[in-house]
């Protein structure tokens, strides 16, 4: 514990904290997430893993999915088009080429991976490889 601290740094620290609190925007409405593209969540469902990504406006044929061992790669292209004579008022949707990979904590049975794309949501069911599953051993 610092018994004597610089009062200015204490005050500045407090000011920074207040500023961060005020500008964090957690009380305001915000987008659901930001960072890498596309945004994805990973869930556990029984023994399997389910990867869900938001891919609004991306055609199935523009998505590329690869699984190898513990790594899953999701690549693709998103195009956003506007009419030639349009004047843009707001432009928030992202477009372009994306390529990201994710390393999973478990080995995946690559032959039985299933992927579905509906309503801008890509769901990938990744069954855990049989040899990676925990085995219970009976005690004799």
């Amino acid at each position, binding site marked *: 514990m610092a018994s004597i601290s610089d009062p200015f740094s204490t005050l500045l620290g407090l000011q920074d904290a207040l500023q961060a609190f005020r500008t964090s925007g957690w009380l305001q409405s915000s987008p*659901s997430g930001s960072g890498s593209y596309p945004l994805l969540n990973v869930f556990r469902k029984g023994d399997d893993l389910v990867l869900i990504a*938001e891919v*609004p406006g991306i055609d199935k044929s523009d998505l590329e999915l690869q699984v190898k061992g513990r790594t899953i790669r999701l690549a693709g292209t998103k195009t956003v088009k506007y009419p030639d004579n349009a004047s843009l008022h707001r432009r928030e949707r992202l477009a372009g080429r994306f390529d990201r990979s994710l390393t999973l904590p478990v080995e995946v049975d690559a032959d039985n991976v299933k992927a579905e794309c509906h309503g801008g949501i890509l769901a990938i069911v990744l069954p855990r490889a049989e040899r990676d599953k925990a085995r219970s051993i009976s005690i004799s």
Partner: protein
Amino acid sequence: MRSRSWPRKKRRQPGRYYIPAADIFETDEALTVILEMPGVQKNNVTIELENGVLRVDGQIDFSNYKGMEPIYTEYNVGHFTRGFTLSNKIDQAEISAQLDSGVLTLTLPKAKDALPRRIALE
């Protein structure tokens, strides 16, 4: 006195709401609003235009997430809502909406009297 800010209509359900990414562009005839609402089904979208404010609401069906335990998350799952104040005069009867792979496209045709008119000299 009771606050009057509480919404009159109980249209909105409790839960998390997020802002959908939006593109807005204008042509000579219409204003187009494009909103990204991944996971929203057609019958869960409400679009209202009142006093020049366009409000779009998309509800998410959480039942798909039953029995799933999140282990790594980058985004929050929630409903979408966003409002826009329109400056142009819109032909309200002619508004059309389309939802395709999580992208909602709203076409708001300008009212006839707001369209630019060319006046011919006699």
